[in-house]
Structure formats: structure tokens, C-alpha cells
């Protein structure tokens, strides 16, 4: 038996990888070898720990020492002090993981993790995703074994139905029902598809699951295949996720080699295999019918439903499509029972939800919370609040299909139905936090720009309608808004929602509608007062020099690229607003704080 007295776990998710964790791992291995400790200490590459803000992250066991923001140069010290002499390098530890008297807190006691409940992310940051045995060690493929040997196909569907699991891709359709619909039709061929075409700006939940625990998705797909009577699965994943794609490939190969995918799994006569299909990053391909069209090798465009995929899906055969996070819950439900899963969450939304926290928040990262947790708990207790003492203005959930939740709804328990009631939606789990410096009209414009770019062009309401809306927003943010613009936006939004072909178009007006609902005053300030309250929309800003503070040093005039500032040295300068291009160079260069933005 191999025995290691210490294990060094290092995150190799996309976040930590981009801040150099591969080089850090190399250095660790080098230093450990130089110290002659390679038989005593094991370096383990794991998936995401969630606290991406503090990456690269490394945890050393058995002490559980949580090192954050490590650099390649720090590694030698960790090895020579901690691993050789047993002295934890205190100044490199994540500050919140150390108690006042210098003791190391266990992960569950750290604020960021305290209120979390990791079900879909249970193995992320714990196992080596490129080693199938580590997945098996934590009960991997046990759920598949249980389903194949102890449960009928109806039993499996029944358990998923009873658990109350709803689709984590955004719409929240009951997963068990989807499986039931796809089991019903008689067909020689059926398909199981995994939607890993995560595309919302700021969302990275599915990527982290695929990078940190790819087998949990493969196993769940095989269970789904057994339940509906399918032998072939496809994972549709973005080519922009190279680490996820690589780990999926390794995982599929290892599962095939172990006989957990392929023919006669566990000697039960059940055959199931999975192939990858890479998407080139078109947002619309996250829509189920467009995704299937893309797998078929055609241009990714949606088609009207019905017929629903459960009846006529991929290659015209009955098909189920489940999101990555949905699948990541399945094995745990089979193993622990539907009652266990249903004990978490709210009445109509069971279980947990993973959110990717981003924007103006201290702990940017990945969190998994039981449904029903309030926004306030997520942002302040787990997320650590807003940086620089700024005030919370809104949280955007659901990406370009969702909406903004204002401060007045901070205490609403988060679940599918509550979010819809307040004009947003769960979406796939992106959560972008905004503070007082964000202009809500500009935010709405940002999301609409995204949908205009990503509209596939098949149906006119989405192709033309969203563009017209964007033009109006563009005018408003450029100080050319007119009376009646708000009403026009509302009318267009209503029509697009009612008539667009697919989910992308039907939800595209949501960011505008929800900001209009809660921040109508900001729209009005832009249109009627030609003023941007947050000071973001450049066209509505004007710069001036405070003559009291100006010393006449001429630095601003020398830095102005438009030659808009003039004056005599040692007396106050002035800005010519006709020439000013509002670049802010004067403000950045002034040493006396004399430039005022209005």
C-alpha cells in the first residue's frame, strides 16, 4: 500500500490555472523531489475549491492548511518550512482560515463555506478529476451499480420524480418528468444529451463541475440512459473550455477502460457509451433544439416545439437533454434517496443550487447553497460583501435571460418561483453583483448587446426586435432619449416575448423590463434630465475644473488628448466642453483633485 504522510491539493480549475497553478505544481514537485520527500508527500491536482478570488489555492493535509494567492516563488518556502519541518507558513495562509490565536480552522468553519452545502460540487477540490479511482473511492459509479442491479427503469424515474429535482439550466422543468416522457415512446434508438454549452456572461458553474468531477456527469448520463432505454449519450460542450474538454476525454477513456461505459456494464447486459461534441460558442446552441441541430452537423438554429425532444429529438429520435449541474445531482439522489434530496430547499424548489458569484463582490467564486437561502446571505455572509465599502445596488441573475434584483428584495429566499415573481429568473446560476457605481440603463444595454450579437436570425422578433430595442437604449445612453422611449421599449419587449421562436428571444427583453421595473428613475434621468446618476454614460457627463482647488500646474492640459484645456500657469485652467471627449485623462492626472465630474 502507498502511504503518504502528507498530501498537497492544488486547484487546476480554469481560474487557478490562469493564475499559474500549473507552474506552481511543477515547482512543488521539483522542491519535494529535491528534499527527497517524493515517497512521503503526494501532490494532487484537483478541481475548483470555489474561492477563485484567492487563487491559486493549495491545501496541505493532514493539517488542512489553506494557502491562498500562492506564487511560484512561495513554493520553496512551503516545502522547506511546512513539509520538511512541519512549520505552517503563516503569512501565506488564507487570512480567514486562521483563528485569532493562530489555529487553523477546518474548511467548514470558514465564513465562505459555512453556509454552503456542496452536493453537485461535492468532489470538486477533493478528488483528482483525472483519476477514476479517486471518484470510485468516494462512492463513484455505486449509483449506476445500484440502478442497474437493484432498480427497475420505472424505479429510477420514480426516485428522480419524488426527489423534486428540477432542471438547473434555468427553466426549472422537473427532471423526472422529462425522463418519464422520453421513456414512454417505443423506439429502437434513443439519446441522452448533456447540455454543457454554458454561455451566460459571468457563469462558470458547469465548467467547474466538468473540470472538477467529470465522472459524476458520465455516471448520471448512464443512469438516465438506463431509465429511458438509450444506449448512446452526447455531451455538447463549448470548445472554449479546453480544460473541461480534456478532462472529459480522459474520464470517458478511463470509464471505457474500466468497463463502466461500453458493453454489458456490470454484467447486466446494459450497453451505454458517450461521445463529445464541441460547440463553437454560439449562445443559441444552449437552446435545446438548436443544440440538437448542431450535434446533427447542421447550423445551430432552433426549431418550433412541439414536437418536444422527448418525442422527436436528436436525429428524429426520443431524446432527453439535461444540464451538467442537474446531472451532477442525480447519483447522490439515487444513493441517498429522494427524501434526502427533498429535505433540502423550499416547497417547490428542492436541493441546492450552484451560483457563480462575480462583479462587485469580495469573494468572487463558486458557491453552492440550499434553495431558500436569501440573497443577503449569499452576498454578505458567503460573498463577503461589496468591496471598498460601496452600497449594494442590484444583483443580476439568469444572465441575458434574467433580470436585476434590487436591494429591497435582498431577503427573499432564492428559488425558481420567487425569482420569477420578482421579475428575474434562476437561470443557470450566474450572479453578477452591482454597486452604486453601476448604471442600470447601461447594464440593460450590455445584456441586450449580447443577445443582439448572439441572435441566430431565424425569427424576425428576435433578429429585428432586439436590435430596435438596443438602438433605443443606445440613444438614451447617448443623451438623445425622447419622451415615449420607455413606452416603446415596453411595447417591443412585450411583442418579442410573445412571438420569438425560442427561449433566447423570448427572454431577451427581460434585462430591460426588470431594470425598468426597479430603476425607472434612472431611465427617466437619462431621458428627461440628460443625466446619468451613476456617472457611467460618458455622453451625459461633463468635466469641469474647480477654480478653488486648481493650482494652475498645467498637467491636465498637457495630458488632454483633445486640446480641450487651456489657461495661464499658476491661475485656474478651464475645460472647453465642446472639445472635451470625456476620456477622464485630466481626472487621472490631476494631483489636487480639482477635476469635477458632473
Amino acid at each position, binding site marked *: *500500500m*502507498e*502511504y*503518504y*504522510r*502528507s*498530501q498537497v*491539493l492544488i486547484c487546476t480549475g480554469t481560474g487557478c490555472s490562469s493564475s499559474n497553478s500549473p507552474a506552481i505544481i511543477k515547482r512543488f514537485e521539483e522542491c519535494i523531489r529535491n528534499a527527497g520527500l517524493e515517497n*512521503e508527500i*503526494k501532490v494532487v491536482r484537483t478541481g475548483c475549491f470555489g474561492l477563485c478570488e484567492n487563487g491559486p489555492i493549495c491545501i496541505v*493535509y*493532514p*493539517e*488542512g492548511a489553506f494557502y491562498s494567492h500562492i506564487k511560484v516563488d512561495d513554493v520553496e518556502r512551503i516545502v522547506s518550512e511546512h513539509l*520538511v*519541518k*512541519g*512549520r505552517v507558513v503563516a503569512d501565506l495562509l488564507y487570512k480567514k482560515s486562521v483563528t485569532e490565536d493562530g489555529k487553523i480552522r*477546518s*474548511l*467548514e468553519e470558514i465564513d465562505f463555506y459555512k453556509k454552503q452545502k456542496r452536493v453537485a460540487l461535492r468532489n470538486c477540490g*477533493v*478528488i483528482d478529476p483525472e483519476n477514476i*479511482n*479517486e471518484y*470510485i*473511492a*468516494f*462512492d*463513484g*459509479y*455505486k449509483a449506476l*451499480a445500484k440502478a442497474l*442491479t437493484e432498480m427497475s427503469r420505472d424505479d429510477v424515474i420514480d426516485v428522480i420524480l419524488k426527489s423534486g429535482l428540477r432542471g438547473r439550466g434555468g427553466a426549472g422543468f422537473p427532471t423526472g418528468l422529462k425522463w418519464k416522457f422520453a421513456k414512454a415512446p417505443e423506439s429502437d434508438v434513443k439519446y441522452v444529451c448533456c447540455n454543457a454549452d454554458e454561455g451566460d456572461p459571468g457563469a462558470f458553474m458547469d465548467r467547474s463541475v466538468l473540470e472538477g468531477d467529470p465522472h459524476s456527469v458520465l455516471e448520471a448520463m448512464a443512469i438516465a440512459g438506463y431509465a429511458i432505454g438509450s444506449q448512446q449519450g452526447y455531451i455538447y460542450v463549448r470548445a472554449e473550455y479546453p480544460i473541461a474538454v480534456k478532462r472529459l476525454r480522459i474520464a470517458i477513456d478511463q470509464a471505457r477502460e*474500466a*468497463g*463502466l461505459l461500453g458493453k454489458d*456494464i*456490470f*454484467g447486466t447486459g446494459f450497453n451505454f457509451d458517450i461521445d463529445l461534441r464541441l460547440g463553437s460558442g454560439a449562445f443559441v446552441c444552449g437552446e435545446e433544439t438548436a443544440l440538437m441541430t448542431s450535434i446533427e452537423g447542421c447550423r445551430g438554429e432552433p426549431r418550433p416545439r412541439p414536437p418536444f425532444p422527448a418525442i422527436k429529438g436528436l436525429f428524429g429520435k426520443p431524446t432527453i437533454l439535461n444540464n451538467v449541474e442537474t446531472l451532477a445531482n442525480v447519483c447522490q439522489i439515487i444513493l441517498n434517496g429522494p427524501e434526502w434530496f427533498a429535505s433540502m430547499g423550499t416547497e417547490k424548489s428542492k436541493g441546492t443550487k450552484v451560483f457563480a458569484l462575480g462583479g462587485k463582490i469580495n469573494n468572487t467564486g463558486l458557491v453552492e447553497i440550499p434553495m431558500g437561502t436569501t440573497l443577503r446571505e449569499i452576498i454578505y455572509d458567503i460573498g463577503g460583501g461589496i468591496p471598498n465599502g460601496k452600497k449594494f445596488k442590484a444583483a443580476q441573475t439568469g444572465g441575458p435571460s434574467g433580470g436585476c434584483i434590487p436591494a429591497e428584495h435582498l431577503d427573499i429566499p432564492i428559488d425558481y418561483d420567487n425569482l420569477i415573481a420578482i421579475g428575474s429568473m434562476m437561470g443557470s446560476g450566474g450572479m453578477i453583483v452591482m454597486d452604486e457605481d453601476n448604471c442600470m440603463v447601461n447594464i440593460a444595454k450590455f445584456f441586450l448587446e449580447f443577445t443582439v450579437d448572439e441572435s441566430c436570425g431565424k425569427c424576425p422578433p428576435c433578429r429585428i426586435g432586439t436590435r430596435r430595442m438596443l438602438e433605443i437604449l443606445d440613444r438614451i445612453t447617448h443623451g438623445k432619449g425622447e419622451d415615449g422611449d420607455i413606452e416603446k421599449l415596453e411595447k417591443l419587449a412585450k411583442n418579442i416575448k410573445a412571438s420569438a421562436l425560442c427561449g433566447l428571444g423570448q427572454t431577451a427583453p427581460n434585462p430591460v423590463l426588470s431594470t425598468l421595473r426597479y430603476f425607472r428613475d434612472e431611465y427617466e434621468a437619462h431621458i428627461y434630465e440628460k443625466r446619468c446618476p451613476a456617472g457611467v454614460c460618458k455622453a451625459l457627463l461633463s468635466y469641469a475644473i474647480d477654480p478653488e482647488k486648481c493650482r494652475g500646474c498645467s498637467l491636465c492640459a498637457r495630458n488632454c488628448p483633445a486640446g480641450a484645456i487651456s489657461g495661464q500657469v499658476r491661475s485656474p485652467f478651464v475645460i472647453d466642453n465642446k472639445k472635451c471627449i470625456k476620456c477622464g485623462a485630466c481626472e487621472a492626472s490631476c494631483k489636487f483633485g480639482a477635476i469635477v465630474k458632473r
Partner: protein
Amino acid sequence: MRSIQELEAIRESTLENMTLRKEHNGTRIVVGMATCGIAAGARGVLTAFMEELAERKLIHVALTQMGCIGMCHLEPIVEVHQPGHETVTYVKVTPDMARRIVREHIEGGSPIEEYTLSHYRAK
């Protein structure tokens, strides 16, 4: 994979190497690994502990190091912490003693009085 037994075998053998990553609150063996400890041969003691623990599959025992506790002349010093028991401090430990500590104290449950600090002091 032909059988669930096969899956279970992989699970058990891999888990042995992963228990370290779970929260630890069981037995802990701590070896003094400051300069004084290393000079007195603590390295060999640590290795002996590792080998003996591995051989006896005592995977739930954590093996860590500590710095100098001020009794450099008694190094290598080894402490055994067990929940619900008083900490036992062994002094001038050799690799052979380490192996015996694993067998008799960790596995057998009875501390080896003649190796302890209190015994040394009483001499």
C-alpha cells in the same frame, strides 16, 4: 467492470490513500523536525513511522511534524496524541523504537513507559 465486488475493491484500496483529506480528529503522531531533531536523526524516525503505519494499514493515523520544543538534547522527540488520552511524549526515539511504538502503543493501545519523557526524568 464485471461486478460490483470489483468496484468495491477499487473503492476500498483507493480510499486508504485519501482519508488524509477528510477532517482529522483521531490519533496523531508528531515528530520533532526542527534542526535539532533532524540532526539527532528524526528523518529516519519519521520514515520508520511511515513504513510501519503503511505496513499495518493504520491509515487513520496522521503523521505530522513539529518544531523545536526546547529540549534539544532529548531529540528525536515524538508525541502521540489520542482523543480522550493524555499526550504521551517519547524521547531519544530511534527507528526501531518508532516501529515498536506503532505496534504496541498505536495498535496495541498501551504506551511504552520506558521510552517516555517522565521515565527519562525519573532516571
